[in-house]
Structure formats: structure tokens, C-alpha cells
């Protein structure tokens, strides 16, 4: 599938946008990794580094008013869907100007105005929500599409499996993306869903299912294009399994002793999505190395500012504790 998709199908702007998205995610996550080590960042932080091509490849097909439901590993999805990077950083630091005013944190980043229905602390929490967003689009006749992200571990949660069936039965404009990074915390996917591609489960709900290389932006982009177009045109839901890897631990602080020595190093060397993208994009002749370097530089500055501003931003006020529970009570 990788071979089929060509960089040429995308315009220069699209290529640069996709690269900027992936680089922004990578920089955001790498920087969080460093900052977390200083002990200044509260709570659980699950980093998306290594999986950027999926978020970028899917979101490249979505409009601002399309919906996504994310996971605990949601920074990449949020950035790719257009959430404000600085407000996200402030949220992760628990500050009042955070995208959720500091009440949600890394695991609950959301921005409904951007169609981002939220990261989720509950594995399998998102797919039912996406069925609802899809139903809403269908009933209102808006041609919006709703996409859920689930991990290889989450693919064993009943809520995910039920959602595949509901979307199929209700014929909803939904796409279910599996980010199979090989592990659920320390447990290998090889153990938790025995001897199959997770995409195979789509057959049991008479839904198209496909496997793509999640390191390859172009492969994801092509598969997502088909599935999302089908959904938008009333063709019903699809499942896309992206085989990928995460670079850091399950959450910050995880030493990953369950992984083979050098496992991550080799992946970084062979399959890094930014490296692969650079190769393809430049060899296509559409973009120059320098243009990408410039983006790297701009992104680095953006993230520097985001971290600085987040650190110095004010905490929520005592009165914020009791607000926002209900619209009215």
C-alpha cells in the first residue's frame, strides 16, 4: 500500500502542513519528556512520539467541523485537529489559561469548537462517543465525519467492539482507527489479541478493515482518504489498523524493561515517520530540505514559548473548584 501512495498526489502546501503537524507533535512530546524529568509536570503523561504520521495522515482529510474522539495518548490527535498548542501546554501544567482551564490535564484535553471531543482516561471511552457524533451528522444531514482512535489494547474493550457493530447497523459516517503500537502498557499486542490483525475484526461487523504502516504518512493518508470519503458519502463506517511504535514508555516514568534491548533505537533508525516523510517529500522534488529545516526551527521556537508561558502562567483560582459542573443547577 505504501508503494501506491505517492507524494505527488499532495500539493506542496499540503506536504508542508503535514510535516509541520508531525514536527509540532514530535517537538511537543520530546520537550514534555525532558520537562517531565525535572518533576515540574503533574500527573500522568502519555507521549505520542513515533506515531505522528497517523494523526497527520488522518486529520489531513478532516474539516474543522468533523469530529474526533481520542485516547489517553491524545496530544498528537489534538494538535493535528487544530487545538491551540500553547493552551494545551498550559493545560498539561495545570494552569488557568489551559485549554480546559487546568481542570482536565493531559488525559482530558478537548476543544469542541475544533471538533475534538476529548482525550479520554478510559480505554475504549471514545468509540461510543464517535457513534453519537456520527449519528448527529447523519440526522442533521451535514456530511460531517466522526473518527475515533483506539489502541491495540483498547481494541479488546467491549465498548470498542460494540461501537463497530452500532456504527455498522446504523450505517454511520464513522472511521475507527486502531493505533497498534504493539503494547498496552507492558502487555504485548501479541498476547492480548491472539494471532490476528485487529483489522480482521471488521469482518465480523461487515465493515471494511485495512492494515497500513503507521510510520508512513502517505500510506495512512491514502487509506484514510478512502475511508473518510466513503463515510462522507453515506457509504458507512470503516476500520483502519495502523501498525506503529511508541518511542517513550507507556507513560513518563516507565522504564520499558518489557521491551527488547535496542527495540526502540532500531525503529527510530529504520522507521521514523519524520525521516521517511522527509525522504519521500524531498525526493518528489516538491519540497526542499531547507523548507523543512525552516519549519523545524519555527516549531522549536513555538514549543519553547509554549513551555515558558506555561511555566509562568497563573494557577486556577479557588472558586474554579466548584464551577463548570453543570450548565445550571
Amino acid at each position: 500500500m505504501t508503494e501506491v501512495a505517492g507524494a505527488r498526489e499532495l500539493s506542496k502546501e499540503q506536504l508542508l502542513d503535514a510535516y509541520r503537524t508531525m514536527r509540532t507533535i514530535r517537538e511537543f512530546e520530546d520537550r514534555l519528556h525532558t520537562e517531565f524529568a525535572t518533576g515540574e509536570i503533574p500527573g500522568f503523561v502519555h507521549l505520542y512520539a513515533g506515531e505522528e504520521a497517523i494523526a497527520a495522515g488522518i486529520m489531513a482529510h478532516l474539516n474543522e467541523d468533523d469530529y474526533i474522539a481520542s485516547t489517553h495518548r491524545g496530544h498528537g490527535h489534538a494538535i493535528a485537529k487544530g487545538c491551540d498548542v500553547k493552551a494545551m501546554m498550559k493545560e498539561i501544567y495545570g494552569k488557568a489559561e489551559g485549554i480546559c482551564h487546568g481542570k482536565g490535564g493531559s488525559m482530558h484535553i478537548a476543544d469542541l469548537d475544533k471538533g475534538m471531543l476529548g482525550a479520554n482516561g478510559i480505554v475504549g471511552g471514545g468509540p461510543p462517543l464517535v457513534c453519537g457524533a456520527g449519528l448527529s451528522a447523519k440526522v442533521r444531514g451535514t456530511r460531517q465525519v466522526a473518527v475515533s482512535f483506539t489502541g491495540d489494547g483498547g481494541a479488546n474493550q467491549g465498548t470498542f467492539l460494540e461501537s463497530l457493530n452500532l456504527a455498522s447497523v446504523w450505517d454511520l459516517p464513522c472511521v475507527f482507527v486502531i493505533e497498534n503500537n504493539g503494547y498496552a502498557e507492558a502487555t504485548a499486542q501479541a498476547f492480548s489479541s491472539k494471532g490476528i490483525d485487529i483489522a480482521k475484526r471488521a469482518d465480523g461487523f461487515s465493515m471494511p478493515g485495512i492494515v497500513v504502516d503507521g510510520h508512513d504518512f502517505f500510506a495512512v493518508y491514502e487509506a484514510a482518504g478512502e475511508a473518510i470519503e466513503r463515510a462522507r458519502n453515506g457509504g458507512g463506517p470503516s476500520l483502519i489498523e495502523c501498525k506503529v511504535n511508541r518511542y517513550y514508555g507507556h507513560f513518563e516514568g516507565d522504564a520499558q524493561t518489557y521491551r527488547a534491548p535496542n527495540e526502540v533505537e532500531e525503529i527510530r533508525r529504520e522507521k521514523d515517520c519524520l525521516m521517511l516523510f522527509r525522504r519521500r517529500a524531498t525526493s518528489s522534488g516538491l519540497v526542499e530540505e531547507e523548507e523543512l529545516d525552516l519549519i523545524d526551527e519555527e516549531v522549536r521556537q513555538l514549543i519553547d514559548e509554549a513551555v515558558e508561558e506555561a511555566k509562568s502562567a497563573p494557577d486556577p483560582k479557588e472558586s474554579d473548584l466548584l464551577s463548570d459542573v453543570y450548565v445550571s443547577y
Partner: protein
Amino acid sequence: MARRITYMQAINEALAQEMERDPSVVIFGEDNAGGAGAPGEDDAWGGVMGVTKGLYPKYPDRVLDTPISESAFIGAAAGAACSGLRPVAELMFVDFMGVCFDQIFNQAAKFRYMFGGKAKTPMVIRTMYGAGIRAASQHSQSLYPIFTHIPGLKVVVPSNPYDAKGLMIASIRDDDPVIFFENKVLYTMEGEVPEEPYTVPLGEAEYVREGDDVTVVAIGRMVGMAEQAAEALADEDIECEIIDPRTTSPLDEETIFESVENTGRLVVVDESNPRCSLAADIAARVAQECFDDLKAAPKMVTAPHTPPPFSPALEDLYVPDPERIAAAVREVAGAGARA
């Protein structure tokens, strides 16, 4: 003379009128349309008890059947509510909450808070509760204390047809997630119900009966039981003031406190199990806030700490009845003012 319809018809009428008024109202649940894909009658069921009967023919695109996948379709209600609809989803029996509670209490209930006030989740979950029809341990529980415990949810427990219609319309128009508890024994209860749409506000208790001796707070089906008890007690010159909270979250504490200030005596009647119950919740709040007004110990009348039994002989002992309520009121009324 005003029109009389049943509790079930009142709910059905509320749903029909809101669907008529607002195209963003959709309803779904198992057999809510009537049984999709079957070769026979389209609108065969309208829900297991027929509460949604007749809606599908009127609004075929907004009344949906579902697979038996509560997590997926209750969660879909939450997702739809965040994206422009006002879904009314049916959890057939509240006893089934265990397969889908996450989507209710961690998702719908918490969006607004977790997202810093940016989310609105206007959804209603209709569900059946209570003992009395020999449906046994997994189809007869009350469980509204569990939902009342959860910040972010509103919990409605109507005791009569008039309130059922007005509270349902208010719940559908409300911008927060509402769990609407329908008592299965009350479905056949008749009462006066205006034909035009109206709302009964969430969070306002009702004085069902005025009296100076003992305040009786009763919930859902227990209101009628308390009224029967009060009749009998009146002959003994014990005058009960019966308060129906109508919603357990928000709870109209002011009205309850006001009454206790006057009577100085409290009995709470709650069909649920006793531990961490609504009875305990209300008794504790009154004890904390109205202590100096209390002339006697507040008393709780609930089901026992057991699952609902199947055998009619046992189930009839399980649910609080007018006799048990009257006995509790006598005890509280009799207890002398403090030394």
C-alpha cells in the same frame, strides 16, 4: 373536567411534543421504534413496555432501534449531545446500568467539568426502576442513589402522571445530562394531565400534603404509599406533611428544611437499599442543618439490605408499604421532645 391519562401516556406525550417542537430531539433504545428488520408490524413494540409506541410512525428518522449494546448507544447519546442533538436514550431497566455506567458517569457527567466549562451535554436517559412486578433481583432495583452520588448528573424520579410529563419536557430542554427514572408500577397510574406542553422545573420539591406533626419525605412510588399512610394516621390525629422532592439531584433541601423547622420530626421513605441511600442522604442533611429544630430522631424507611427477591410472598415484604411507613411515623411522632 380535565383530561386524565396514565403515567406512561404522559411520558409518551412529552416525548411526542418535544420531538414535534425540536428537530434535534432523537430517541433510541432497544425496540424503541418497535423492532427493526422484522417482517411483521413496523411499530410492533415501542419499547418493552410501550412507552415510545406511536413515535416511530410520526418521526421515522428520529426514532431508532438499537442492538443490545448499551455502552455503545448510551455513549452515542453522550456523543450526539456534544455535537448538536438532544438525544433521549432508553436504558430499559436501570438494573442494566452495570454494562454502560462508564459512558454515563465518566463521560457524559464529567465532560463539562473536565473540559473547563466548554462542553454542553443535553441528553436524557430514560430508565425503569423499582420492585413490584415479580421481576426478581436483576430487574427490580432502584439504584438512583448511585446516580445521585455522581456530580454532573441530574436525577429525576416522578411520582405521578402530571409531574412525569412536565419533568420529561424540562429534562429534554435541560442542557445537562438527566437520568429520568420511571417507576414500572406507576405506568398505569392515572391522573390529570394538561394536553399542552408544560414544564415542571428540576430541583423544586412539591408539598403533596400539609401537616404539622411529622415531615414525610417520599420518593417516586413511595409518595403514594406515604399518602395512604397519612390517611390512616389522620384518623389517629397525626398530621403528616408529605414532601415529594421530584428530583434527587438537584435536591430541594430548602423545602425539606422549612418543613422540618415546622414539624421538628422527619421520616424519609426510599424504595432503594438502605446503605448510602437517598434516605440516609436526606436524614443526614437534616440532622446536620436542622438539628436544633428536631424534636425526635429522624427515621429512615427503605428496602432491606438484600437484593429484590422473586417470590411474591417475599417481594411484598421487600418494598416499604403504608403500614411500615405509618409505624415509623407513629414512632417519630410519639418520641417525646428532648430532655
